[in-house]
């Protein structure tokens, strides 16, 4: 079993909130990500069992959403918003400098398995541009030096 007993309990609580069990699939996928960072084939099989659907139906959902992953991920997800309001205030320059700082292109991950950096569409912080999301946290009104320090401080 790759999904822990604790997560299974939480999934059962989520299922109870919905008129049909499958409503809790996104919450369950979030729980699996909190535990493993991605949905392995094994985890997909276990979820399929819990929700009485087929594993490919689980993976179809995983592949539709940007925040779900089917393969193991680095410890941190860093996303610089490059939509229009952020681009107007220097987001592309920030992204390019962070790519250089980490030595990887957007979409790639550092060799030490620490960070995947990429761009993202509007994150609802347009007035506080440029900005980036590090895992579940927003960092706004960034300048290059501060952004570098934030990345350097990640484990």
């Amino acid at each position, binding site marked *: 079993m790759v999904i822990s007993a604790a997560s299974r309990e939480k999934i059962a609580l989520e299922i109870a909130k919905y008129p049909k069990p499958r409503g809790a*699939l996104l919450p369950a996928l979030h729980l699996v990500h909190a535990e493993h960072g991605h949905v392995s084939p094994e985890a997909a099989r276990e979820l399929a069992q819990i929700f009485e659907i087929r594993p490919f139906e689980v993976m179809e959902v995983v592949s539709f959403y*940007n925040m779900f992953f089917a393969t193991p991920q680095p410890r941190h997800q860093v996303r610089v918003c490059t939509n*229009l309001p952020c681009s107007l205030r220097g987001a592309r320059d920030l992204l390019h400098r962070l790519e250089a700082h980490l030595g990887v292109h957007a979409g790639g991950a550092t060799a030490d398995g620490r960070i995947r950096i990429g761009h993202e569409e509007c994150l609802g912080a347009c007035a506080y541009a440029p900005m980036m999301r590090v895992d579940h946290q927003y960092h706004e009104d960034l300048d290059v030096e501060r952004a570098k320090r934030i990345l350097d401080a990640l484990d």
Partner: protein
Amino acid sequence: MLKAPYVTGYLTEHFADDAFGTLEGYLERGGYQAARKALREMTPEAVIELVKGSGLQGRGGAGFGTGLKWSFMPKGSDKPKYLVCNADESEPGSFKDRLLMERGPHQMLEGILIAAWATGASKTFIYIRGEYAFPADQVERAVAEAYAKGYLGKNVMKTGFAHDVVVQRGAGAYICGEETGLLESLEGKKGQPRKKPPFPAQYGAFGMPTTVNNVETFSHVPHILKKGAEWFRGFGTEKSPGTTIFGVSGHVARPGLYELPLGTRLDEIVFEHAGGVPGGRKLKGVIPGGMSMPILPAGQLDVPMANEFLRERKTMLGTGGIMVMDETTCMVRVACVISYFFRDESCGQCTQCREGTGWMNKIIERIERGAGEEADLGILLDVAAKMEGQTICAFSDAAAWPVQGLLRHFRGDFEAHVREHKCPFPESFEL
């Protein structure tokens, strides 16, 4: 947490005060009196009539009459009925719902409770975009406080009315803001919009009658209940009453949020409130209502921000996300960013949308590189025209409109790229 707006109104007047986000602080400032009044003293029909009379229009982008929408919910049916609070806010340029959840979660919940009473809904699903972890935490905390106080659950405010609220976090997909894409996602599926009819009021979440409203729409409701339709109509224009929270971004001195009456002039918002373009540069264009809405050139900002006026200029209020661009801005680069976004986010069900967004992006990027031809401009308009009005959801229209707008007002920028075989705006923002 987001800063309180620079200009506040009835929605945001207490937003500088952290206590307003807690149940206790909200109660001290008159919170939940409107819900108590609705549940104890008013019939559901009376609530719907009041909201209809206020003229409140949905703030999620389409501007549909809120009271009228509520009246579509079947009455006396034995099926459970649901509400959905659309907190997916992913229209580029928009960040007001985030503010409303971070600083006023109980105001939104009170609106939900009133809407639940009016429509006979037994459950509300609040669907919050996955990236909004902090706002979602605030909403979950507020929901837990409301349960503990007996404002949610089996016997709301001891009136015998039962209502539950479930918070679901999305997982990163713009199309889940479209109401039927949202419903699919809520049901644990890919967020691909449904064919309509049937509309959500007949066949919504989990197949049950459902009303979908935006975060801001719900947040206006307690104020209408408390102070009346006439009071509400004292703000805004005759056809578009109330305030809204404009989000101003891009090349302005004071980017941020501004709660102002609908019908406030766009030039007043950009120049007076947001301080105009910094650095002595001139204005070039403004997108008035989120990325899906066509741009206005600098000379056309003398327009009240309400749909009846914006439509005359072939654009719309949308989400009130105002994006400002100065004279250095290359409008072909703007088109690159916009068309990339729509290509990336199309759910792919409809050929016109899937192929059209791809073609538009490809042609625009070619023009930006200096490899475009005169004929490309005609092809772009042709593709855009074929994307309108023919698809399962309005995403395809929303992808076509901004490109049409850019070509309507800034065709010269496109032509210069074709003529000079390069981008003639070296000072423009980087791609």
